[in-house]
């Protein structure tokens, strides 16, 4: 800390930390301690001090070849007919220095302290304004997002309603196509040649497959919109399973796969939504066929147990990879991949089955070994508990 006259000559060294070794001497300009390259800046500093009556926190290099260059921070304030100049290695060094000098109650130090505080406070204000601006922008963006979110949700709902209606309306013409195909197939042998019969069979199968897709799509949108309502009536599970196994025979056709139905001798009545459970069984059996190797069997069984009934479907197919197992009941878990012989799959099947079964208060388990096959078990309770 130096006291300088109006020309910048050092009149008195008020305090010097010996470790700094600035080499400054009374009677010489304070600039003797400055590095030659920074001389102009030091003179600017002093000019600013004279012009404004204060200068704060100028970074100036001091020392030279011998002592090594050291960057100090210069501040200055008026003192009687001259100035007090303070150079510190670090801005924060001002605090203890000023504190110590304040106890001596030096007028110049009081002034310097005030300047220092003003400067810090000024900076803080600018920062606060900046933070305020950022916060305003965030708050405005948040409002925009909240609004867009509501609009998007409404748009999605509208689209889903539209798709639902469209898909629903496709059912009727598909029914007509499938129905006529069946009618033609039933004509006496001589009137249709085998090639034609084959074509008609494909039309019937394709329309049946499309109907299943439509049912899945409708079920999915019902599940997503939370409007899956079950129509529970006592139903013969064995009957449904037999029927579904029969109608799936078409998928088996080219692959030489046998479906073995292991069903109880008499009807097994349980309160379920027949259409939904048929959909579940259909999904599981057609999956089993899809992922089966050629010339294997798919075994479908229904057994009664204490709490209700168990439907199981076992295949000798490719199995399910462990990483897929973990998210099996999520939509699109298996991906939109295909079956062994390229049968289309949209990855919704097990997700929908699981939702329907749990809506019946039942549970669903899958055991699978890659390369060996998969067994799916559906347990349905006698008293279908929860209806969601």
């Amino acid at each position, binding site marked *: 800390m130096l006291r300088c006259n109006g020309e910048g000559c050092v009149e008195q060294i008020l305090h010097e930390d010996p470790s700094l070794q600035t080499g400054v001497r009374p009677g010489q300009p304070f600039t003797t301690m400055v590095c030659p390259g920074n001389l102009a800046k030091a003179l600017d500093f002093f000019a600013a001090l004279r012009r404004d009556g204060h200068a704060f926190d100028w970074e100036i290099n001091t020392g030279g070849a011998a002592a090594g260059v050291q960057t100090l921070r210069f501040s200055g304030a008026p003192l009687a007919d001259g100035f007090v100049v303070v150079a510190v290695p670090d801005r924060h060094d001002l605090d203890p220095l000023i504190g110590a000098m304040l106890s001596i109650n030096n007028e110049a130090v009081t002034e310097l302290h*005030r300047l220092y505080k003003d400067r810090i406070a000024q900076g803080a204000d600018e920062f*606060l304004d900046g933070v*305020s*601006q950022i916060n*305003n922008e965030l708050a*405005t963006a948040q409002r925009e997002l909240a609004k867009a979110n509501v609009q998007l949700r409404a748009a999605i709902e509208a689209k889903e309603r539209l798709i639902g209606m469209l898909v629903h309306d496709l059912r009727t013409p598909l029914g007509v196509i499938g129905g006529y195909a069946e009618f033609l197939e039933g004509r006496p042998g001589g009137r249709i040649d085998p090639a034609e019969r084959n074509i008609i069979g494909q039309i019937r199968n394709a329309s049946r497959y499309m109907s299943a897709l439509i049912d899945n799509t409708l079920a999915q949108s019902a599940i997503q919109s939370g409007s899956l309502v079950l129509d529970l009536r006592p139903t013969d599970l064995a009957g449904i399973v037999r029927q579904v196994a029969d109608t799936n025979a078409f998928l088996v056709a080219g692959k030489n796969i046998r479906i073995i139905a292991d069903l109880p001798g008499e009807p097994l009545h349980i309160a379920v939504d027949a259409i939904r459970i048929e959909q579940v069984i259909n999904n599981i059996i057609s999956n089993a066929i899809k992922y089966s190797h050629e010339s294997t069997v798919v075994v479908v069984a229904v057994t009664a147990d204490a709490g209700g009934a168990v439907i199981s479907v076992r295949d000798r197919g490719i199995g399910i990879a462990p990483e897929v197992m973990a998210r099996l009941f999520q939509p699109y878990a298996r991906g939109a991949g295909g079956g062994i012989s390229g049968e289309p799959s949209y990855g919704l099947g097990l997700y929908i089955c699981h939702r329907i079964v749990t809506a019946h208060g039942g549970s669903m388990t899958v055991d699978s070994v890659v390369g060996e096959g998969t067994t799916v078990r559906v347990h349905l309770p006698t008293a279908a508990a929860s209806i969601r």
Partner: protein
Amino acid sequence: MSATADLILERRKDLAEAVVTLQYDRRPQLVARYGPSGRGKCVEDVQYHLLFLAEAVANDSPALFCEYVAWAKVLFINLGIAVEDLAESLVALDDVLRIRLPGGAEIAASIVGQARAELDKMPGDLPSFIRQEAAGGELARLYLDALMAGDRHKASRLVMDKVTAGMTIPEVYLDVFQPALREVGRLWQMNRITVAHEHFATAATQAIMAQLYPHIFKAGTKHHTVIATCVGGELHEIGARMVGDCLELDGWDTHYLGANSPAKGIIRLLRERQADLLAVSATLTAHLHQLADLIGEVRQELEHLPILVGGYPFNLDPSLCSKLGADGWAADAAAAVAVARRLVAR
């Protein structure tokens, strides 16, 4: 903006220097009282006087300057600055304007003179903005206490609980947030809290308003489209946000641009959205000429678009609305909804 007002703004620095020089000449003991740095502060203060004076002159609104002086009086008293110094700076300002301002000096000086004459009668402190007996008054008090204690979660809970119990959004805005925030301003002005408290109270309130969005945004058709925004340079944005939100609740499709929106962007969006109304907020009086400019620019591009204005200075002098060339103003967000409806029905 009038030529005199322009001149005042342009020469603000020199005029302020001249006023302070005159003031110090007349009273040399000020040097001792305010110390070596005090003079600079005085110049800053007078520059601030001139900002408000320019707007008062431009809008032919002595009230704007008188209200400013009344505001400054409370501020100064609480900072420990003598009111007589404020009075003397007004006298010096009056004198300097008469000498240094060609032409328009009369208007400016008479506005200053009027404020000077009223200064003694102006109150030295302000009553609280929170009245316990008012609707929502008790909640406003608790809300403010929570914010001043730095507890925004408690503040949020207080509000959310009431909303769940049936308090409407406009009630929360106008009976709780508005008086609480204005009280924050009063406490700052009375030197009881810092700017940091003010920032915290604002940020917390903005966050709590965002939590209320599920109650505000609903799907469905909207009857009109409005762009709500603050004038360029403005940092105060909660008032404008409230206006936007209340219009949204009233079935408007609102687009809120927030604080500090440049005119170009506002006009582009007005076109893009085919807006039926522009709602602009200004809080700092010094921003009124920007608002006048914005209104001028919008009129040039979209001649028939109704423009609604509001904010702190309009509550001091409602005649500003027509002087600035706007079509309507409102004192708060609830009144804004009614005026907005009327403007688009024309």
